[in-house]
């Protein structure tokens, strides 16, 4: 098997995640799709790291994980405060810049 297949899998997962962001309207599911896209990128970075035989790709994947963790914390806090003020987690309801 050619290791480029990992890249194809990553591309497929990224595409599914991007489509999910466009289709779904529940803010939590949209957020999960974003996580899926980040994970797909990580898979591509790890595969690249293996192809080129150095660890820089893994380092970048590691930083991606750290940033994703920070993003999840802030994003979920925003969703919770949105749900508190609007009693719904649908992104359609959040059409104003203020809460």
């Amino acid at each position, binding site marked *: 098997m050619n290791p480029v297949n990992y890249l194809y899998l990553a591309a497929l997962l990224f595409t599914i995640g991007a489509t999910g962001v466009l289709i779904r309207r529940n803010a*939590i599911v949209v957020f999960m799709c974003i996580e899926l896209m980040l994970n797909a990128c990580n898979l591509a970075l790890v595969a690249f790291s293996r192809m080129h035989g150095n660890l820089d790709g893994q380092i970048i994947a590691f930083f991606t994980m750290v940033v994703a963790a920070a993003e999840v914390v802030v994003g979920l806090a925003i969703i919770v405060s949105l749900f508190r003020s609007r009693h719904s987690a649908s992104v359609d309801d959040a059409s104003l810049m203020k809460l």
Partner: protein
Amino acid sequence: MSAQLAAYSTSTGEAFQFWVLGTVAVIGALCTVFMKRAVHSALCLAATMIVLAVFYLANGAYFLGIVQIVVYTGAIMMLFLFVVMLVGVTAADSLKETIKGQRWLALLCGLGFGVLLFAGIAHASLKDFNGIGRANANGNVEGLASLIFTRYVFAFELTGALLITAAVGAMVLTHRQRTERARTQRELSEQRVREGTHVPPLPAPGVYARHNAVDVAGLLPDGTPSELTVSKTLRERGQVRDVSAEALNDLKALEQRAEERLERTEIEPTAFKRPEEASK
């Protein structure tokens, strides 16, 4: 050509693992997008992430594989589940489209994007395949550490600042400042007596001997459900289950069975009878 191909191809075992687990990952990703309820989406995403962790391990990224399981499936997905529970488990997406044809356009856009990505990868010249063996010679974690603390040390310190900012930001966003003092139990009871509505405690939810779930409204004597019996949170979410018709039918069937058991010829459809009449 075959020698060159052999130089950059993986073992048969890894190929088998890739095709089996890759299918699982794609199915999990599709379920994440298309499952109606957020809990199911979260669980499918957790499955996909575990599969990705196995792929990291297979690619020689041992540290990242473990971190993926511990941080992503262990911490982030559980945080997601926590918020899903907070927001409401049964709150399904509304299927009404706000913009006409938006779903199909989005699917089309996704498809086009995927075709572009695949074509890009297919046209890229990915000829060199060195394998991770040499880079991992002194151990994967040691190699990563030596890179993080030398070349990437500034980025590493910045992530520390980012994490602290995120933690503070989350606390600021979810913290609610109380503007007035919380009313005490005594004040609440005095207010209830003054207003004269619902002086005794609110009735309990559930239909006795049939449903004692908290989301089932208790029935009034005439068989209509009483909203007062269900907690305010469930009422606001619209998660009150109405079993009044079901419960009345059950009751009727039970009475009919009882009368048949007692070999009474006359079967009365009425639900309520006076005690002295029933004892005859």
